[in-house]
């Protein structure tokens, strides 16, 4: 099974930094065709998209979660 990997960050990364990230993710995930994109809207952290699976570890998602928790009370 072929998994396309998209790594989204808020700032642009150097190729060495990208390679380090791919190595780290390769320890856990199997993927091909890695792509790095920049999206300032995520504010910080990283969003990993593996085919149809999205692992959102961005600061924007955490802020959304905090807002949801606060407004629920």
């Amino acid at each position: 099974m072929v998994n396309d990997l998209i790594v989204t960050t808020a700032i642009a990364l150097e190729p060495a930094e990208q390679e380090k990230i791919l190595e780290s993710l390769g320890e856990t995930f199997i993927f091909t065709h890695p792509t790095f994109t920049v999206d300032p809207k995520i504010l910080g952290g990283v969003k990993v998209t593996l085919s149809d699976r999205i692992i959102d570890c961005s600061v924007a998602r955490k802020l959304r979660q905090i807002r949801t928790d606060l407004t629920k009370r």
Partner: protein
Amino acid sequence: MKELLDPLYLGLHMANFIVLAFFLRKLLYKPVKKLMDKRNELVAEQQKKLMDADADIERKKVELEASMTEREEKMQAAQAAAMAEITEKANAVMQKAHAEAEELLVSGRANIEREHQSAVANLDVTIAELAVEVAGKLISTQLTQEEQKALIEQGIREAKSFGK
């Protein structure tokens, strides 16, 4: 003078007086007495009529007073009944107004409480949204490259933990 003392003359005078007295009695005294009796009867009859009229007036006066008393009692009874009815209606209106006022008060308090809760909830939401928005702006403008990279490394670790 001698003639006046004549017994015959005296007898004639006496006879004359007797005849005169007889006729006076027959022709004058009896009719007058009869007339007087009749008048007395008429007066007595008129007095009796007057007394009857007085009695009738007195009786009518008593009847009128009784009628007036009865009417006055009836009027007082009607007035008391009307007053009781008015009082009862006024009490009913007062009770209804009081109940409606109480209901409005309770409803108003409930509305105020709901509005208060809603305002507090809206305020909480607004504060939360503002806080998150301010935090987002601060993060996007204040984070250094090093801090951004540290966050990326942390995110990679979290992503790997989801993959295990």
